Structure formats: structure tokens, C-alpha cells
């Protein structure tokens, strides 16, 4: 069972030495209420070989897609449509064993859950997203990313 499935992402100090980076495409959920940003993220991730299995702009839409599609990782804005909070979405997804990273203009100080791996601040370089989701997924699996992009700030939270 992987760390993501147990909900026990390791602290950066505890990252194991083996590099689990590979080129397997990840199934990703994008949670973003701005249509243009969602399209940008989708295109950037697709260009990097990943699959975007859904785009949601509310907590309930995100959970519905996540329950059906079981994504490997979710990228989540903090401010969502209809007054929803990305913090809530990330927490509920993490509770389901789905790791998350935030994409936000105002990155939260903490993730609040070990599987809320980190945050990429907006505006971001679309080119950094592919490596960021790969690194976050490696961390969620208990591995050590070989070359995590500087744009991704890890929370490194313990239970």
C-alpha cells in the first residue's frame, strides 16, 4: 500500500533515497473556477504527457469526479465557484487518499493534511506544472523527487 493510500505522506526530512520518478502519465483532477486558467492548466499538463480526467469548479463537483475517476493527484485553486473553498476540497480529497497541491495567488501557510503536499503560487510558468505534479506525486508515494521545481513549495506536514 502506498503512502498516498494510507494518507501518510512523509516529511521532507524522511524522504527515502530512492528516486521514484518515472514517465508514467498521471491522471489529474483540476479544480479551478476561472475558465481560462483551467484551460491553461489542462493544456500544460496534457503537453507534459499527463491526463486531465476532469475539471471542477466547486467542492461537490470535485468530489463527484474524484469518487468516480480516482485521480492520482488534484491541483486545486483556493477560491472556487459559488463561494466554495479549495481548502475544503483539498482536505476532503486528502481524506479520500488523493494527494493535492494548491494553485493559488495566495498560497495557504499550511496544507492541514499530510497529503496536501504543497502549493504553486500564481502567476506560474505553465512549463513548470508537469514537473511539479510529478514531484508532488512522488512525495505522496513516499519517495524523494529528483529535481522538484522551485515553484512548488512543499508543506512537509506530519500527522
Amino acid at each position, binding site marked *: 500500500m502506498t503512502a498516498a493510500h494510507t494518507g501518510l505522506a512523509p516529511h521532507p526530512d524522511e524522504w527515502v533515497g530512492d528516486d521514484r520518478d518515472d514517465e508514467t502519465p498521471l491522471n489529474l483532477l483540476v479544480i479551478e*473556477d476561472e*475558465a481560462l486558467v483551467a*484551460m491553461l492548466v489542462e493544456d500544460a499538463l496534457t503537453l507534459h504527457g499527463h491526463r486531465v480526467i476532469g475539471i471542477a*469548479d466547486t467542492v461537490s463537483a470535485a468530489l463527484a469526479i474524484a469518487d468516480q475517476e480516482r485521480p492520482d493527484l488534484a491541483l486545486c485553486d483556493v477560491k472556487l465557484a459559488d463561494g466554495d473553498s479549495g481548502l475544503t476540497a483539498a482536505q476532503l480529497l486528502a481524506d479520500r487518499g488523493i494527494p493535492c497541491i494548491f494553485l493559488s495567488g495566495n498560497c495557504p501557510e499550511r496544507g492541514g493534511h499530510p497529503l496536501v503536499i504543497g502549493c504553486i503560487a500564481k502567476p506560474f510558468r505553465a512549463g513548470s506544472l508537469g514537473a511539479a505534479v510529478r514531484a508532488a506525486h512522488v512525495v505522496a508515494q513516499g519517495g524523494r523527487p529528483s529535481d522538484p521545481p522551485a515553484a512548488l513549495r512543499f508543506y512537509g506536514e506530519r500527522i
Partner: protein
Amino acid sequence: MALPPPSFPPLPLSGEANGAAAADPADAQRYLSLVVAATDRLMAADDPAAMIDSLFALIRDELRLDVFFHFRRDGEAIRLETAGGLTRAEWQAAAGLDIGPSVCGQAMRERRTLHLTDIQTSGEERTEFVRSLGVQVYLCMPLLHGDELLGTLGFGRRAARPFDEEERRLLLLLCHYAALAQHRLRIEEALRRGLDTQARLLAELNHRVRNALQVAIGLVSHEGRQAPDTGTRRALMRAAERLQVLASAHRPLYATADPGLVDLPALFGDVIVQLRGETGDMPITVDGPVAVSIERAVAAALLLDALMAQAAGVPHIGFTVNGAPGNEMLRISFQATGWGRIADVVDRDRLVVRLCHQLRATLTNEDDGCLILVMPHDGGAYGARSAS
């Protein structure tokens, strides 16, 4: 910020001399009137020093006061904020006074009222300054708000009669009200400073957003002009146009009384001017103010831009708000030749589909010449509010 309820100073006073109590009902009546008048002045004051001057002017005759001092604590420093009954030279001497060894310094340190009599025959260091003024009796009280020391108020008489219990009770009460009023003024000043800071930040944000968008427009346009092939050039110029639409949505935001809201019909007019160069009377009719959040305004403006890319003519645009308060729907009609046909092609345009989803909007046509966009009016959150 809510002020704590007033706590009245305990009596009897902690003084070093006690006068006989004056329980004359006429005195009590006059003092009550003074308290009422003083309270009015203190609560209406907008300047701390003038407030104490006004208080002194009100009570000096009734209480036979000759001098007063108000020292204010400013961080670690103690400053003479105002004084009365002094010559210019005496004022300057008081302003340069080392307050530490003085009566007021002691009142601050010990946070208690000091009532000193027979000062002229005393050789105490702490009364040296007031003795030099000919003061015979001196009452010095700390100005406290909760546990915070704001300063002191001191009142002196050249006559030998000590302050009696009722006079001291009155002065303590006024001192307490003065402390409350000073606290209020400080809170108001902090609020004003906070609002000023917010206004400056908003102006800075306005500048930076506009500047950043303008730089982006310039950059994309430049690349477009340099592009070697027509397709790339057209795509980049289209991107620059969309950035211009984004900038248009932000421009009116900072001019509204209610930050965060944008006048949508005005924005649509602006977008049409920029996309088509139309500068005459805008073909837009509105049956009331339609203010929406900036996020929805940006999405709606981009949607208009995308729709206009599908059709040749500038449409007549009508805005109507329907539905019960809290559940209003905004209906926008676009009327011009060919606009009705757009509804058949928009499902194939990824950007239009995503923008409609973001806006929770539907696009239908009534006939060949009319396209109808219906969307929640910000869920009713802003529907009743005007942008200007």
C-alpha cells in the same frame, strides 16, 4: 471596536491629605451639570489636546483652578500635550521638565491619584516645579484605559484650600471620561490610518494590474508583429485582443464605490469600442443597474469577445434582470443579422463552453437574428447593488 464599559474610580481617594466633604445639594447639582457638559465636549472632540483645553475652560472657575497640565505618554516618552494658566516661559519650562522625579511622574509610576497640599511650605523635590508657579494645592491623576497608561492630568490651585471629596470625585470622573475619549480618538486615528493604507494599496494594486496587463499586451503584440507567418501573427494579435478585454474589465473596477463590482453594460460598451472601434452611441439598453463581480465581469467580457469573433456586425445588446430577489437571472439579448446562428456553433468552441460553465450561463437563439444569454445574476449576491 467596542469600548469597555466605564469603571468608576474607587473612593475614598488615595491622597496624602483629605479635605472635608462638601455634601451641599447645590454643589452636587452644579457638578452634575458640569459632568453632562464635559461629557458632551469629550465625546464630540476630534483633537486630544483641544479636548483637555476645553475641559479645563469648562471647570476652572467652578473648581477655582489656576493651572493644569496634561502629560501624554507616547511610547516610552512623556510629553506635555497641553497646559493652561501658564505664561509662555512657564509653558516652555513645563515642556522641558524631567517628569520622572515630579508629582506626575510619581502618579504614573504608582498609577494612583496624588493630592498634595501646603506645597509652598514644603521642600519636596517632586513639587519643585509647581511650587515655582505659586501653586499651593495640586491634584495629579493618571489617565488610564484598562491597564494602559495614557498620561496624567494635573490641576493646581494657588489658594490654600485643598480639593474636597466632591471636587476630587468630580475631577476623577472627568479624568476617567477624558481617558475614554482619548482612547476613542486613538482608535479613530488608527482606523483612519488603516483606511489610508488600504486606499494606497488599492491604488498601487490598480497601477500594477494595469501596468502588468499593458506590458503583457505590448509583449504579445510585439511578438505578433514579428511573427513570420500569417497564422501565428493572427493568433498572437487575437491573444493581445483578449488581454485587452481583460484589462477593460479591470479598468472600471477601481472607479466604483464598491470595490469588486463592475458595471457590466458599460464594460460591454468598452469592449465593443476596443474591438470594433465604434465610438458613437452604444447600442446597449439596460432596464436598471447591472453590477457583477470582477470574476464574472471578466468571464462575460471574454464571452462577448468570443461571440463577436463569430459574427460580423455589432449587435444591439439588451440587459434585463428577472426573478425574485436573491434568485435573479440576467438575460442579455444580442440582436443583429446572423447572431442567432451563433448558438449552433458555440458548442464546438472550447473557450465559449468553459466560459458559459463558469458563468452558469446558457446560450439559445430566438430566431436567426437574436442570441439570448441567460445566467444567474451573481446568485443574487450583487444584484441589488449598483457599481457606481
